[in-house]
């Protein structure tokens, strides 16, 4: 039962040259799972901490359920937070860690007991209630930290990179558990991560941040398919999108021309690119949408592109093929091939990109053209 509205939010740290968060605007709906993602130093944790009340808001307004929160201290915002290093109280047992917030709020003893035990049951940590944090594994501590946040039944949950200290397998498991918990709790969650896969798999909607600026706030699939700029396009997806700088020129028809690659721009894209004739652009194409012309006959593919294979990385289900266009060995690209095809290093092949998936970005503004 909580919406969060971030309006023109700014954060300038004292003595800093530029703002850490610039003019952020977000409207988070009730019960939404929002992920803040971006490279380190992009301000995602700062934004979360401003929502939590751990960082002062320099400018703009933060509302939870339509009420202004700027001046309220963390305890009055009815939020809970899970920290990256768990921040469990080392001198308290698991039970006391979870009960601390309730005790401070003068909750009756038997109610505390019942709430803590219920939360422990949900998280499967009932057998740990008497232990101290130092006697537990990272995964167990993580559960306790989550438990501490859910006992108070707050309106909003904030997660600050909660899984980054766990090993890969546990991370995948906890990812699913947090999602499940989200459904059970019916709560609004704001979750910070630098891992775009975590963001894609968990978020209802994702906020992509860079240098304190919100790049795009959208659903995972929209970010992937319709990135608004080159940064989002390159950040979302793994391996990331390939970019090739070049120019749009007019021959018999509009053509993309770079040092090594030249192809006629497909008909449906020509109107959009018309204003860019004679201008510099980035051609973007995802590794997923590159096909070997020898094998793929059914899709509408772009004109032939001649490439040389530099290296191959088989990961089992598929193979990442790293290549360059003939005549331009400086720029290396990746293509995701079916693992049944094997390519020798140095072999020359002919590929095409799914016409629907060709992307072009303005070189100067890096905004997406098509």
């Amino acid at each position, binding site marked *: 039962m909580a919406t969060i509205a971030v309006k023109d939010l700014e954060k300038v740290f004292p003595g800093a040259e530029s703002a850490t968060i610039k003019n952020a605007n977000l409207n988070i709906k009730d019960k939404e799972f929002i992920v803040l993602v971006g490279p380190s130093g992009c301000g995602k944790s700062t934004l979360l901490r401003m929502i939590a*009340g*751990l960082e002062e808001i320099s400018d703009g307004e933060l509302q939870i359920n339509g009420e202004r929160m700027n001046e309220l201290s963390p*305890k009055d915002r009815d939020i809970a*937070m899970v920290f990256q290093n768990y*921040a469990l*109280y080392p*001198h308290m047992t698991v039970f006391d860690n979870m009960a*601390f*917030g309730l005790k401070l709020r003068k909750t009756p003893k038997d109610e505390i007991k019942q709430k803590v035990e219920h939360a422990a049951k949900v998280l499967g940590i009932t057998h740990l209630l008497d232990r101290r944090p130092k006697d537990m594994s990272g995964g167990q501590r993580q559960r306790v930290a989550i438990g501490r946040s859910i006992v*108070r039944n707050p309106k909003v949950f904030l997660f600050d990179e909660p899984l980054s200290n766990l090993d890969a397998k546990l991370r995948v498991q906890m990812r699913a558990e947090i999602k499940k918990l989200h459904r059970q709790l019916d709560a609004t969650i704001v979750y910070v991560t630098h891992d775009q896969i975590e963001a894609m798999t968990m978020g209802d909607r994702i906020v992509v941040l860079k240098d304190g600026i919100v790049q795009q706030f959208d659903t995972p699939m929209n970010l992937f398919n319709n990135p608004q700029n080159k940064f989002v396009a390159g950040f979302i997806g793994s391996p990331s999108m390939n970019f090739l700088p070049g120019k749009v020129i007019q021959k018999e028809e509009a053509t993309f021309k770079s040092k090594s690659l030249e192809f006629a721009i497909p008909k449906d894209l020509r109107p959009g690119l018309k204003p860019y004739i004679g201008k510099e652009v980035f051609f973007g194409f995802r590794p997923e949408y590159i096909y070997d012309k020898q094998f793929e006959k059914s899709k509408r593919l772009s004109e032939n592109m001649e490439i040389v294979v530099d290296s191959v990385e088989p990961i089992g289900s598929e193979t990442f093929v790293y290549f360059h266009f003939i005549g331009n060995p400086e720029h290396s690209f990746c293509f995701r091939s079916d693992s049944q095809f094997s390519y020798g290093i140095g072999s020359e092949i002919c590929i095409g990109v799914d016409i629907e998936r060709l992307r072009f970005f303005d070189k100067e503004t890096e905004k997406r053209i098509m």
Partner: protein
Amino acid sequence: MKFKSRKKEQLFWGYLFLAFPLLLLSIFVFFPIGFAFVVSFYDWNLLIPDKPFVGLGNYFELFKDPVFIKAIKNTIIYTIGVVPVQTLLSLFLAFIMNQKIRGRAFFRTAFYIPAITSSVVTSIIFVWIYSKPGLLNYGLNALGVDSNIDWLTNPVTVLPSIMILNVWTTSGYFMVSFLAGLQNIPASLYEAAKIDGANQWQQFWKITVPMVRPVTYFVVIMSLIGCFQVFDQIFIMSSGGPDNASTTMSYFVYQNSFKYFRFGFGAASAAVLALLIFATTLIQKKYFPPDVY
């Protein structure tokens, strides 16, 4: 074989490095301690050549001596008065110094200066402050409290006065220990506590105090030992007077050994003091262990 010889070589060098300090300690610390213990069983007087063995005679005499009983009482009062105040005050100062306040460096230095100033100097300053025309009476009068007593010659006020001086001189020293302990507490614990709803005061009692427990343990032990052995301030400010109102155990030891030259008797009282310190430390270790998380 090779490994074994290397281990032997390490041992050799290890003991070689230890040998010199061990020798010094043996001559100036361990031997005198043992010798004093032996002396305590003799009626050993510097002015009398005859030094008969008296067994526990000195010890029996000690506990019949009203001055010694008073010295024990004073020492215990002194310790009970000083240790908790000193520990809490230094923790509190450290907590404040650990906040982002203006002039932090100045306050840190100001609080630490008494710790590095010679105790003779601070004692003499306080002798003036506590004297009849001194600063304390002047200040009290200015505040409207009529006060005209000589704090150090009044049997009721002499001990508390010296206790206050001691708290002042050592709090800064222990503050530094606490500061180091405080800086080891992760900031995220306070943030978690804030979100859990703890105010400043609750953060101090529920997070800071338990988290610095190992430091507190160290501070309390050092402070206890310091109080049990308090000597220099007493020697300079009151000479144990008036009427032994400020005679502590170390002062008693000094008086009997070096004023009356009754080394046997003095050594016996020193042994009792050592035993008292030892027992207190053991009790603390047993009932208030330094939990490290």
